[in-house]
């Protein structure tokens, strides 16, 4: 699903990621851990095609995306869903509109949008909040809206950049359950986090990045040096 083949990315003279090689299969749930500035953000940005790698080959959703034209980037992003630490909901739109918006981008018919958005909101446990505005919701509820928006178009990969970073322990765990549920439906999940308790509790694959290098990769819970 995602293949990093000897990827190197530099910002000027600073190396953000060096010779990173990793295979993430369809249906995997991968935690990306490591100290701040280790290269996790670079890893995510490469997948989202916000930046181009300097060396190596990058495949996402069965497609070589090492070099994409500006025209092809939207196509790639439609096969990805993204969730951020700060939710990034549009404050002047209702919950319904925030999620519907992701479907409008793909030119879905209003009829289809009206039918599917409530279903996904229900799945995320926020069916009643459809007409509320983001600032009327708790952090956990806002993150549920963000996840609903990320999965409404059935992406092949869900990227979560510290999705529990702004949430208390219990809420964070609820969000993890939702992400797990999304994963069980067949979506590959790549999650960046600092919350080691969650990583431990979930017992999923961990990839640790330090100083731009992948220093540890556990597959199926078994530690294996790379």
């Amino acid at each position, binding site marked *: 699903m995602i293949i990093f083949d000897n990827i190197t990315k530099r910002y000027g003279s600073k190396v953000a990621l060096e010779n990173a090689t990793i295979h993430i299969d369809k249906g995997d749930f991968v935690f990306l851990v490591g100290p701040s500035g280790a290269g996790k953000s670079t890893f995510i940005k490469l997948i989202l*095609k916000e930046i181009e790698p300097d060396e190596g080959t990058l495949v996402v959703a069965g497609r070589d995306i090492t070099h994409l034209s*500006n025209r092809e980037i939207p196509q*790639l992003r*439609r096969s990805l869903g993204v969730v951020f630490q700060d939710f*990034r909901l549009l404050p002047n739109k209702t919950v319904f509109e925030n999620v519907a*918006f*992701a479907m409008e*981008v793909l030119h879905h018919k209003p009829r289809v949008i009206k039918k599917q958005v409530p279903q996904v909101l229900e799945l995320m446990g926020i069916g009643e909040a459809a007409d509320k505005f983001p600032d009327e919701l708790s952090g956990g509820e806002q993150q549920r809206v963000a996840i609903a928006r990320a999965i409404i*178009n059935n992406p092949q990969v869900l990227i979560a950049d510290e999705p529990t970073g702004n949430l208390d322990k219990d809420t964070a765990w609820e969000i993890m359950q939702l992400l797990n549920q999304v994963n069980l439906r067949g979506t590959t999940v790549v999650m960046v986090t600092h919350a080691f308790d969650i990583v431990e509790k979930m017992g999923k694959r961990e990839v640790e990045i330090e100083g731009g290098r992948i220093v540890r990769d556990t597959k199926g819970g078994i530690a294996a040096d790379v």
Partner: protein
Amino acid sequence: MFKGLGYSLKQALVQIFRNKGMAVASLFAITAMLLILGLFFFLTVNVNFLTEEIKEQFDTIEVFLQDDQTEAQADVIRTSLSKLPGVESVEYIDKARAMEEFKVRWGDNAYLLDGLSTNPLPNSLRVKLTDLNEGDIVAEVSRNMAGVEDVRYYQTEVNKILKVSEGIQKGALVVILFLIIVSVVVVSNTVKLTVMARQEEIRIMKYVGATNWFIRGPLLLEGMFIGLIASLIALGCTWAIYARLMQAFGQQAMILLSSSLVETNFMMINLAWIYIALGISIGAFGSILSMRRFLQA
């Protein structure tokens, strides 16, 4: 882009309504630019029109004959002149007809000429040219002919006028181009404020895979719509102003320049297209320009 046209239209109207202040600012900017531009347009078109009239009036050479020349002698001169290159026709004008024409030109004041006891005008030959470049030679040849008193040919004067009018037209063109650039910048800055306010929205749109045209569409239509409204307002204003100017100065222009100004309706129909095309383009271009930075990756 066209698949999402309905969406774009709706968003454009919603945005105009939400950012009324911004929309009005752009509207005024474009309207003002178009009005100034219209002024220069009038100037150019009228100057152009007058120049053409002048050119037409001065493609003739008047050859005045000595008073002792008989009509038969005049005919000899006429035949030889009409054989010269660049000459279309040569017409004999006797004193009486010259006076008649003179009276017509004086119009209401013609009665003053009635006081003359004798007709002081000479018989003449009117040489019509096909090629103005041959004018100098034809004038020179006729001047040296026996029986010719004087030759009137205004080539140098005409050339001077042509040069001045060319200068005015070039100047106006420069000013118009400058105005277009200024208005694009003004509009792009106004739209930029809208875009900045929606920066977060645009970023999220890009994350969910919106194409640049999907994001641009509503803003583009917004700009075009504002441009269209501005052009209609400018057109209304210009119409009123020009009609008034014609009323006030049309007569004077007739007397001063012995030629009328370009008619209001003709002017307006042409100007309508120019205004609408320019207004919409300025709005559209301003929008696209303002978004460029925000749409990169």
